[in-house]
């Protein structure tokens, strides 16, 4: 299950945190390890990507808050 979630999260991160590269996979892992609390986050992330892929959502940064 965890690996599936990991695969679904097609996330990559830029080096936006000071001098230390946090590592893309490592940041993703934090979502996975978040357990039950993270499932909601994972689903929302995946949902957003899916919408973009089908042209139903904006590609660039969205200003709306999560619900």
């Amino acid at each position, binding site marked *: 299950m965890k*690996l599936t979630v990991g695969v679904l999260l097609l996330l990559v991160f830029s080096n936006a945190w000071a001098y230390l590269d*946090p590592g*893309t996979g*490592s*940041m993703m*892992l934090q979502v996975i390890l*978040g357990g039950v609390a993270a499932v909601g*986050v994972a689903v929302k*992330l995946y949902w957003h990507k899916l919408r973009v892929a089908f042209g139903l959502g904006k590609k660039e940064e969205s200003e709306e808050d*999560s619900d």
Partner: protein
Amino acid sequence: MGLARKKNPKKIQTKAPMNTLSSEVDTGSFRDRDGRVYRHQGRVLRGLSASALENYRQLQSKKFYQKLVESGKVVATRELLDEENPLSESVQAQWSGFLEHEPVPIISYAYEWTFSMLKAAASLQLHLVERAISNGFTVKDATPYNVQFVNRRPVFIDIPSFEPLREGEPWSGYRQFCEMFLFPLLLQSYKNCDFQPFMRASIDGVGVHTAASLFGFRDRFRKGVASHVWLQAKLDRRYGGSSENVRSSLKSAGFNRELILVNVRKLQKLVRKLEWRATGSEWGDYSEFHNYSDEDHVRKEDFIREAVTSSKASVVWDIGCNTGQFSRIAASLCKQVLSTDIDHVAVERLFLNKETPDNILPLVQNVADPSPNWGWRNSERTDLQSRSDPGLVLCLALIHHVVITANIPLAEFVDWLASLTGKLVIEYVSRRDDKVKTLLRNKEDKYQDYSSENLEANLKRHFEVTRQEHLNNGDRTLFYCEKSQVGGD
């Protein structure tokens, strides 16, 4: 708030080029562009950029931070006013403000620590992350080089690591925590594999892929391995090379601090439960008691006591300290003792023993292969002599190991001791002694230089031998030596 008045608030930040660096700059402090540490006459000062200064001012107004400082978990720090700043004009011009930190008596590094020392540092690191994140801050990195030992307790020294938490972002220090703290601890606990050589050879610790190759199929079900080692390595392979920016995606998906805290708490539990059942140490159980009569033992203790007192040393090194029995004597008579031994188990026991005095810093160290000057420009991490200046060195029941086991010529060993200090107690162990017989048992005896006469002759090249004492019917001899010119402390 004690604000430092800036001389020129609108000045442009310029940095001096490398070849005109102040000679007072700490050569290990450069990776974070927002600050730099300077040492001036024993004081520890830190220049901060405008943003780092702003972060600090926010941080020090927070209760959680103040509590951490009060409890001694974070180093005592204050902002330095311009007029109090002793550094040169050109250095001051490079930074928006300065902090002053309480100095650490002796700086030490993770590859000199024992398992429990690294574990204590790891627990401290996680505690700080938990406290920070619960209060709107974060600790942006996780390296044991930000932790020092004072009175045998870990203290966090890198104040600019605290930054305001931006909602929606994961903990940036997690991977580094794994590579610099967790994996070394797992190696020691799960595989009884000494972590120090890894930490000494690799400035960034045990990499995720190295860890994955070391923890094989059988280890995958041990606590912490599947997630932090195996899964992290897999995800790193798959996603390490991309460059897409998804900070916004995470944020709009609702990533929040709770997720970080869940992970941090799991890590805390994992670290807390890690144990190292030290096995089969050749010297771990060894006590000098075996080789001395009670009377001789008392005479040796008295000799040491007198040596420390008359040396007036405030810092004493006990090299080859083993159980630390003589370190303890020195500790009651001086300010700070550095106790080192090649045996990880012995040093671990010394560290864990509740009766060990607080002013003893125990470190793992091989005299024949000591901590080097290495890292960037071979001065990022330094040797022990650069970090501590002993007024007296105790070299008890060690010379036979150095000359016979480690094959160091006796004359060179004495030269090295003379380079450390102006005052020395050295114990010669004769060939009649059981221990020496053991060391020679499987070797051809080529050690012509190993003799009491030769030791005395070499000591006299550097020192005056002012006291001598024979123990064990002459099998062991103690020498107290002082340099003719005043040296050391």
